[in-house]
């Protein structure tokens, strides 16, 4: 199995973690680690790779692309969906820059 996931940056204090949970995707909050979850699920040879830099770059491209195509995107999505998505993207971008959110690639075998 191989997957990417966004998570609170490892090592945050409780206040930072709360900020990360508020800024991140819907289910970003976690009480364990993905390494432990994978091992508990029977996977071995768990690899974790920090892909946050690329996530940051990708999110920045999304923000730029969203603004670049704003008129056409508003026409198809509607103002509410468009603004919701742009707000979410800029919020997570700020959180990544503040060191609160990370994105990791996990890979494991059984």
């Amino acid at each position, binding site marked *: *199995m*191989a*997957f*990417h*996931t*966004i*998570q609170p940056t490892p090592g945050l204090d409780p206040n930072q973690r709360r900020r990360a949970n508020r800024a*991140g*995707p*819907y*289910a*970003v909050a976690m009480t364990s680690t*993905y390494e432990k979850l994978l091992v508990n699920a029977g996977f071995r040879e768990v690899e974790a790779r920090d*892909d946050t830099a*690329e*996530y940051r770059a*990708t*999110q920045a*491209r*999304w923000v*730029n*692309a*969203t603004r*670049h*195509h704003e008129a*056409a*995107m508003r*026409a*198809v*999505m509607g103002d509410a*969906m468009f603004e919701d*998505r742009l707000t979410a993207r800029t919020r997570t971008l700020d959180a990544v820059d503040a060191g609160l959110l990370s*994105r990791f*690639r996990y*890979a494991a075998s059984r």
Partner: protein
Amino acid sequence: MQEVERFRSRYAVSGDAALLAAELEALGTDYSANGYTTLTQADDIGDWLSLDEDDVLLDVGAGCGWPGLYLARRHGCAVISLDPVSEGMPTLKQRALADGCGKQAWPVIGVAEAIPLRPRSIDAIVHADVLC
């Protein structure tokens, strides 16, 4: 449930030219994706999984098909695209046919907590930003 409804609305507008143009600029892809797995990252995952034409890949939370459909085309494997939301499935099916993967791409409505597949019927699993 609110999150599922959000994705229903999102997938209902998939395939629009402006959305695809934005996706191309952000991810380098045109699979009606709106996440963060780039083309390069999908290639990396496909290589790590060592996929080939004998494999069955499960893409959990597949949405409109990225990255599972792409990996099926690239590696020749079969792909089961699992998602609880059906609104992305027409786009997924259309793309599978366009890619020549119609016979090896199987969209399935279902949730990750209760995957409707037989045990040991899958060789590899991929998902992109599903757990968060």
